[in-house]
């Protein structure tokens, strides 16, 4: 890429090259773009054709960035609440005043109740994901850092399972992202088939994977297999769609393993040399013959066998696992079974297969290492850590469900101060029973919220609001998978300023310098990034700006070369040194060491009586092009494209209920209800409905009880608390039951 990243045009417009990361937009995808600044305002965003991954392409969330950046409702100065909680009464204050108030409170709670009485909440996918851990551990000094989603049902389970089974960072499909010349690189091999399981990467760009790479691969001949309860657009271009009953994925994975093992389609060399527990797995999968799996999953037996044969014989055939692995109490077993499928078919760490990164690198490593700055005594107070070792070993957070219990009961101790960093979780995003969280969070005495807009969560709880800049307004580094598989790394360049916003790392540094200066030697964000980059890569932040994007070299078959284990021996960084098809750690934690299927907690088979009253299987959370979770609802151009929360329902089911396309309907079950707009489509099974998440209405009244209409279409009120797997992971966000009826109001 061109060295010059900032240019002035003849009309005075300044053009700044950058890579994106929310706020607002997406996970750490790092798409390349050029920001056009005129008279201090962002006037245009253009894709950067030189960027090796996005190649000029840009989605509507970045194309509408000027509307977001200069939105009249955006909060761009620090604010202090001057009314009661839930009242829309605020006073602009200086950063010094805000930080003084906050530091006084932190010292007060730490001195009187212990630092553990302070809790930091983080949200999904934003840049804050790198910084909310150090904010808690290193700047504030509390062990309680919480991702509040029941069962940690997003990404964490997949990372933890991989840590235990492979001893590696995140397994991502090889889309030639490591190579500047991409798919043409001679070391690269195009996948023959690609299995996309419980995921829709075209819209979600999950965790930094550039979703439309799938289209690039299809054009080059890769064939697609979708595992999804819905026929998606991609499904209509796929060779096969396994349209399964939501929540039965683990049975399907075990059925595929059954065929691959029994028909001897597995990679004998890999299995013999690099796996542990194959015989046990072989025995286990005998319990899942295709006919039985067909009954459980509603996927025809012939389809299961046909797809299993493809996965066993196509070379390479990576499997890209999605959020469906996490949002399922049986998800640990699903993840385990998918990793087993990938491993025994010889698709691990080979060209065009599944790449694996280190468990943590760069800033991803720093964020985890800051926990060592806390004393053992304090670290032991982390909520839920003792009860849920399988979660607390791999994740540095509290246990989310235990955290709600602690808020409600004051046990083992009372939480008193909350810090909400880029997390709007009373909206249907990262919590189950958000109404219950909302009530429980009332007990916090003092709260800080960092965000870009006054969200329902901020309106309900903030005492101090700290404004975040968008990625266009600060310096930063974006790296895919938060460093767990950094396929590339890009420079985020500050192009201009709006108001007085401070980025996550800037707030961490300023707060850290006041409270724990020994851990915060850096004076600026740039100094911090230099320190992160130099030791590992030998270049500093300015060099990265000039490179634009850096793609670290990738080595395949690291397990043969001693590149995965800390001791430098060949093999995997697990207890046995092998891929654990039978898990020593799961067994030690009291779980079955082998994958097994368990029916969802509420389903036509586990709760047949309830199913009579709630006769639909409810799944939720599909992504759209126009929003990143609860972001973007206030952007006019995007709202014009997606004006309402949509529930998909089959026309036959709708007709029985007198529901027409475009009708507002209620979805209701034992736990809650919400209102969404019906879209009739045959792409969904007549017994299943799919609802949208993340909805609030920035145009509706801000104050209590409305809170921007946050309770109206809130699908997560239908998801129960603490219905999680035995190891503490996975809640049934995608496999509940409900009834549907026309809204007459």
């Amino acid at each position, binding site marked *: 890429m061109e060295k010059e990243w900032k240019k002035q045009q003849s009309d005075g417009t300044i053009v700044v090259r950058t890579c994106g990361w929310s706020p607002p937009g997406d996970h750490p995808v790092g798409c390349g773009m050029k920001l056009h600044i005129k008279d201090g305002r962002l006037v245009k965003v*253009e894709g950067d*054709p030189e960027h090796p991954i996005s190649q000029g392409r840009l989605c509507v969330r970045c194309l*509408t960035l000027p509307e977001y950046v200069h939105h009249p409702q955006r909060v761009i100065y620090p604010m202090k609440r001057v009314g009661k909680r839930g009242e829309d009464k605020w006073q602009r204050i200086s950063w010094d005043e805000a930080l003084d108030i906050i530091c006084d409170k932190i010292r007060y709670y730490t001195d009187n109740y212990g630092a553990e009485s302070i809790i930091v909440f983080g949200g999904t996918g934003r840049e804050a994901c790198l910084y909310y851990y150090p904010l808690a551990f290193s700047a504030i000094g509390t062990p309680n850092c919480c991702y509040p989603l029941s069962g940690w049902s997003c990404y964490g389970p997949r990372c933890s399972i991989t840590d235990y089974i492979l001893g590696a960072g995140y397994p991502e499909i090889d889309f030639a992202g490591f190579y500047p010349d991409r798919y043409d690189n001679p070391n690269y091999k195009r996948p023959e088939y690609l299995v996309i399981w419980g995921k829709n990467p075209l819209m979600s760009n999950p965790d930094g994977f550039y979703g439309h790479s799938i289209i690039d691969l299809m054009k080059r001949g890769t064939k697609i297999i979708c595992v999804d309860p819905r*026929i998606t657009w991609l499904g*209509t271009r796929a060779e096969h769609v396994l349209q399964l009953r939501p929540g039965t994925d683990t049975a399907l994975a075990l059925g595929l393993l059954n065929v691959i093992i029994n028909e001897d389609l597995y990679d004998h060399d890999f299995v013999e040399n690099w796996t542990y527990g194959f015989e046990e797995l072989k025995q286990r999968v005998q319990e899942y013959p295709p006919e039985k799996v067909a009954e459980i999953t509603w996927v025809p037996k012939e389809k299961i066998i046909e797809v299993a044969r493809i996965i066993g014989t196509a070379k390479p055939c990576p499997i890209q696992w999605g959020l469906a692995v996490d949002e399922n109490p049986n998800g640990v077993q699903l993840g385990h079974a998918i990793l087993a499928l990938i491993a025994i078919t010889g698709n691990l760490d080979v060209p065009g297969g599944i790449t694996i990164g280190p468990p943590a690198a760069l800033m991803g490593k720093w964020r985890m290492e800051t926990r060592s700055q806390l004393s053992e005594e304090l670290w032991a107070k982390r909520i839920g850590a003792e009860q849920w070792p399988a979660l607390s070993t791999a994740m540095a957070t509290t246990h989310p469900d235990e955290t709600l219990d602690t808020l409600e009961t004051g046990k083992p101790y009372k939480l008193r101060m909350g810090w909400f960093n880029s997390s709007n979780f009373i909206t249907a995003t990262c919590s189950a029973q958000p109404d219950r969280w909302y009530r429980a969070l009332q007990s916090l005495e003092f709260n800080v919220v960092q965000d870009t807009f006054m969200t329902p969560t901020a309106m309900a709880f903030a005492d101090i609001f700290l404004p975040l800049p968008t990625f266009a307004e600060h310096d930063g580094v974006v790296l895919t998978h938060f460093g767990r598989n950094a396929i590339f790394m890009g420079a985020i360049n500050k192009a201009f300023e709006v108001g007085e916003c401070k980025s996550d790392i800037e707030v961490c540094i300023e707060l850290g310098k006041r409270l724990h200066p020994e851990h915060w030697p850096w004076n600026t964000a740039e100094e911090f990034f230099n320190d992160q980059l130099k030791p590992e890569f030998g270049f500093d932040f300015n060099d990265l700006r000039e490179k634009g994007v850096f793609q670290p070299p990738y080595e395949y078959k690291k397990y043969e070369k001693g590149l995965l284990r800390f001791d430098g021996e060949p093999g995997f960084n697990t207890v046995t040194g092998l891929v654990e098809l039978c898990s020593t750690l799961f067994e030690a934690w009291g779980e079955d060491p082998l994958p097994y299927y368990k029916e969802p907690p509420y389903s036509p088979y586990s709760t047949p009586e309830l199913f009579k009253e709630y006769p639909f299987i409810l799944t939720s959370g599909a992504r759209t092009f126009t929003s990143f979770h609860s972001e973007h609802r206030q952007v006019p151009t995007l709202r014009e494209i997606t004006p309402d929360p949509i529930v998909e329902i089959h026309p036959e089911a709708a007709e029985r209920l007198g529901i027409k396309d475009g009708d507002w309907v209620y979805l209701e079950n034992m736990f809650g209800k919400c209102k969404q707009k019906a879209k009739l489509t*045959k792409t969904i099974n007549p017994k299943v409905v799919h609802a949208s998440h993340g909805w609030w209405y920035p145009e509706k009244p801000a104050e209590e009880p409305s809170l921007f209409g946050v309770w109206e279409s809130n699908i997560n009120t239908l998801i129960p608390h603490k219905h999680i797997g035995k190891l503490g992971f996975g809640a049934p966000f995608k496999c509940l039951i409900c009834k549907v009826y026309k809204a007459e109001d």
Partner: protein
Amino acid sequence: MSQYGLLIDYEYCTGCHSCEVSCKNEKKLGRGVYGIKLAEIGPFEITPGNWEWNYVPCPTKLCDLCADRVERGEKPACVLHCLGLAMDYGPVEELAKKMAEKGKKVVMFVP
């Protein structure tokens, strides 16, 4: 001078709306006015498991194939930003050749 056109490979148009929005940005168009607008055909099932579901962006009379951009040596806004890289721009004769090579699910507009 040859007639220029816009090629759309609707096998790979994923319905992302980037053409629509980048065109609005380029032409500074208000709400409800488009230089190119996405149309959706389907989804419907022809035979079991055989679905038809296409997105096809259609240029309007506001489309001048981004004459200014092309003059500066840039691609038309929609072509640059298309997430599926499913759009192309050029002389109609060249595009016709590309269409024949592709052989299916491709359309050309001469706005």
